[in-house]
């Protein structure tokens, strides 16, 4: 099966490949998939003032899975976290011309984005809870 030129380009020149430290402030990490299924995707976002200022990925999977996650990180940069949640797998399919057997790769990328956003939100909530607790302690 022949890959589209865009998939080949992302495979040869992956965008934003790498990692942030998971415990860094403002970083959200989403890891989805399973080695047994042949795909594991990690998407990370760095958020400042509700806007994604940087994104990274690492993927174990076929060329389409690599391209889907590489493309996702390109799209994430500059978006607000709410906008990021709106990214649909069908947009990835369209952009990369993925054939039907590879649609699951785009689904996984969408899941990874959502998982990263959820992780960021959870961390942000914890931080604000701690701050609130600290404020209430100092006020008493």
């Amino acid at each position, binding site marked *: 099966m022949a890959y589209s030129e865009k998939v080949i380009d992302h495979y040869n020149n992956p965008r934003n490949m790498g990692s942030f430290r998971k415990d860094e402030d403002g970083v959200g990490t989403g890891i989805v998939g*399973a080695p047994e*299924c*042949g795909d*594991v995707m990690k998407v990370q976002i760095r958020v400042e003032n509700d806007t994604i200022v940087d994104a990274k990925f*690492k*993927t174990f*999977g*076929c060329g389409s899975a690599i391209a889907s996650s590489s493309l996702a990180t390109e799209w994430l940069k500059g978006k607000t976290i709410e906008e990021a949640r709106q990214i649909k797998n069908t947009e990835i399919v369209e952009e990369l011309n993925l054939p039907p057997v590879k649609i699951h790769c785009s689904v996984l990328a969408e899941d990874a984005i959502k998982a990263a956003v959820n992780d960021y939100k959870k961390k942000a909530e914890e931080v604000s809870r701690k701050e609130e607790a600290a404020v209430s302690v100092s006020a008493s």
Partner: protein
Amino acid sequence: MKLPIYMDYHSTTPCDPRVVDAMLPFFTEKFGNSASRNHSFGWESEEAVELARKQIARLIHADSKELVFTSGATESDNLALKGVVEMYRQKGDHIITSATEHRAVIDPAKALEKKGIKVTYLSVEKTGRVNPDDVRNAITDKTILISLMLANNEIGTIHPIKEIGKIAKEKGILFHCDATQGVGKIPVDVQDLGVDLMSFSAHKIYGPKGIGALYVRRKAPRVRLVPMLDGGGHERGMRSGTIPVPLVVGFGKACELCEQEMATESIRIAAMRDRLEEGINASLEESYLNGHPTERLPGNLNISFAYVEGEALLMGVKEIALSSGSACTSATLEPSYVLRALGVGSDLAHSSIRFGLGRFTTNEEVEYTIERMIKAVNHLREMSPLYEMAKEGVDLKTVEWAAH
């Protein structure tokens, strides 16, 4: 060196130019039907077919009258399983095969199951070998056929067919062997192996596609089959249909060449294969051999590259024709059933690459392949979250993955 490089010889082989030369006259001036008994065109073709039959029979130490020409090994396997079961159904309703057989045996066995035949699919050892004791233990008084391959098409493991042949003989059970990957690559002697039926084909041994044979023993015991095709009664009534004379001539020539050159060729190919394995292992940690370390076809090398997905790897070396046990494109997402049967984890099965070396493989191609594999695996490991986690000391087996 020319690109792309072909390193998928288990899948098929190019016709040897000497084979093509032998075939050519039989497309044009020598076009007779070998079944035409009344004119020289027919006699000429019949003579060519009989010569080919002798060349093929000699390679496997059979009598030329014991060969039935088919369209290929898939048809031979179907004819052996279905033809034997239909003929001997009164004697019993049980057959034995293994979990790592080619689909051309597994699927006919499944079709027979639907018709009420009981099938035992033997499991294999870690190296991919069937244990002869398991065969013995699986035999019942209803067993009418044992069907096991000589060498596996994915991992190249050579099975102890001779030992199993003795058990079959002792118990008086017919023994079929799918020898498609073994014939022409390793010595095959139907008497020594003790097989009663044997499938093989021309295109795996530098002959043309579309022709194969089923060896059917004539004496001690005389094996009978119910044919799949009704028609002119060719091939002792077991396979009707006009003999494709050019293909048969090519098949014969291919077998003759294998017989003459196998001894030196197999040493040369095994040396290149060993160099490939060593070159890869020297530079890539966590590369695991699938199959048997020694009882293996000379041209076979099957390796799992941990933390890297096979299809992505093939994409990285797309100027080299290889095959992967990954099933990223299949609807089920199930990786190779052969590797799974060996107890290889799904993750490593997804990471497997099969290298198939053959007659026209060169040292230069092997060196190029080593270099390209190292580069591609490192590129993908750099990208792999699993590799990163493993390097951080995370035991991947303890991670709770969200299977999808």
